């Protein structure tokens, strides 16, 4: 039972990072990355092949690289791989004017192609069987039991999530974050204000891709294994639903979404006893997630914690040096103007 709690928390941390990365790309900048899962996956694979050690004559799996880099290098390599992939893809796909659902289709296609290529090309990442035996960091040093290590990982992820959250919040609340939203709201108007939309979009895509890859690297170091089963393109849908339900353009909302969707519906049922025919529960999960998405989008399109608005008020006399009091207002949709 203890296992269930610690593992759920680990997944919560991973999905939180995932949701923040997608929220940055989609919620704040309006980029429709329907191939998001590929970024998490590339981070996982590259972290794996740089920590798994070289292939030996006894190896039952084939892969590229195969170094045994010390912690935290595999994580860094994984994260960078996501950034590089995002830079390349972003440059090809995002620097053009394509309608939103077509961007989604193209990114989805990228995810499907990636899945095919990796599965078919066994020498890359061991094809459909995937990689296993990936060393967990610090395990040799700490000598913890399996349960103990799980809790250690929870602590490790908590630290990471706090740092990433603070970083992303700071970015999003800064004037840079404001240009993201400007770009999302009206690209041409943003251009007239001197914002280099193409470059901005690319930068956001790369940062989001890096965080996604980071989450993948962290996940693979926990699981010790990674295969194409873990990254079918439907997984992207789950993260989108999490961000939609939790609240787009709101990082706390994204965290809430990370809590609701994958953990409650993903992890929880896997600890329930199997009922019906084998595989029924996972089938039902998809139905539940889809229904949840449809209902939320109907009743509360902005999500549980919507983006909110920045309220500014003037204090004191209209003097250049006076301080402005700022506050965030949550879900109130309209503000009555104080008389005309």
């Amino acid at each position, binding site marked *: 039972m203890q296992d269930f709690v610690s593992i759920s928390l680990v997944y919560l941390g991973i999905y939180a990072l995932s949701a923040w990365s997608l929220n940055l790309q989609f919620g704040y900048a309006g980029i*429709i990355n329907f191939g998001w899962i590929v970024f998490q996956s590339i981070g996982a694979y590259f972290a794996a092949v740089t920590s798994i050690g070289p292939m030996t004559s006894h190896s039952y799996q084939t892969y590229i690289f195969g170094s045994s880099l010390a912690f935290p290098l595999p994580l860094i390599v994984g994260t960078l791989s996501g950034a590089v992939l995002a830079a390349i893809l972003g440059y*090809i*796909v995002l620097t*053009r*004017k*394509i*309608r*939103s*659902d*077509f*961007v*989604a*289709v*193209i990114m989805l*296609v*990228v995810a*499907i*192609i990636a899945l*095919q*290529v990796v*599965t*078919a090309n066994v020498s890359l990442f061991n094809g459909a069987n995937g990689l296993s035996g990936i060393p967990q960091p610090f395990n040799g040093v700490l000598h913890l039991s399996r349960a103990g290590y799980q809790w250690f990982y929870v602590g490790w992820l908590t630290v990471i999530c706090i740092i990433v959250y603070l970083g992303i919040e700071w970015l999003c609340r800064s004037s840079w974050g404001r240009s993201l939203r400007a770009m999302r709201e009206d690209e041409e108007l943003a251009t007239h204000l001197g914002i280099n939309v193409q470059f901005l979009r690319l930068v956001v895509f790369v940062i989001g891709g890096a965080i996604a890859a980071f989450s993948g690297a962290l996940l693979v170091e926990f699981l010790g294994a990674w295969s194409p089963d873990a990254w079918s393109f*439907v997984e992207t*849908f789950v993260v*989108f639903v999490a961000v*939609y339900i939790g609240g787009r353009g709101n990082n706390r909302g994204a965290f809430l979404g990370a809590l609701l969707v994958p953990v409650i519906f993903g992890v929880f049922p896997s600890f329930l006893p199997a009922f*019906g*025919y084998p*595989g*029924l529960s996972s*089938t*039902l999960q*998809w*139905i539940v*997630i*889809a*229904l949840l*998405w*449809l209902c939320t*989008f*109907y009743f509360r*399109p902005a999500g549980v914690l919507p983006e909110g608005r920045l309220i500014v008020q003037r204090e004191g006399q209209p003097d250049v040096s006076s301080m402005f009091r700022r506050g965030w207002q949550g879900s109130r949709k309209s503000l009555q103007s104080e008389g005309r």
Partner: protein
Amino acid sequence: MDLYIEGIGFGIIAAASIMLGAMGFTLQFGLTNVLNIGYGALMTFGAFATYLLHVWGVNVWEAVIIGGVATSLLTLLVAKTVLTVYVRKGAALFEMAMITFGVALILENGLAAITHSNTYILSMGLEHAHTIGPIRFTSTQLVLVIIAAGVFILLDSFLHITKVGKALRATAVDPDLARTCGIATNRIVTVAWLMSGFLCGLAGGVFTIDIFTVNAFTGDSLMPLVIVAALMGKAGSVRGAVLASLVLGIVTQVVSIAGASSYDSVVAYGALAVALLANPKLLQGGLVAERVQITV
């Protein structure tokens, strides 16, 4: 060389199902501007309908047609209930695509739950193979190709000769203008949903006859090629969809025969990605790239 000609033969047969699906998809997409990712689920429904009717003793070709009719009704139902609701709520293009994705998940997983994720076999019995040069095919496969070709000819004539057909094309190009010209766009859209649903069901039925099997996710294996073919032609252009289907069918089969079978889809998707990226104006001469309005 013979091998490649054989590939072309297989490609034409494969193109039969792709073509039917693509014609339906492009009609839907051209008229409503909704990228219906749930199309695959609807094809699965058509496939199952055909299978069930056949199991219950209906002649398989009649089963395909009845399956098509059933799918057309389901399509209309989904369109007029689910999709309309969200369009009224103000869903934009991408959100509509997500919604169709959600609907697809529910439909297909619902089917999976009911069928316990079993795969069923649709047997046509042992058949004699005919040969034309290096190409070998069964009577069934010949009929599939004839059905696809026949449907295309009928549809194309319908769209270009009949009044309703012309109204359809007009609404696809500019719904507001069509309305101003007195075309009852609501009814035209209903016709479009019904027709494309019918083609969708046909595609599912034909596909399942071609591959002998059906399960809750049958449509998913056909759908990507259907969407690729539909989007490579002009949105709303049936002729373009058919041409693209032929090309895709042949290319994927030839690639498969050339030994890189696991890459056949990659080639297809790659082709689409390149087509979309290189020239978004390829699709509807720029109209699709800018059109934001959804008509449901």
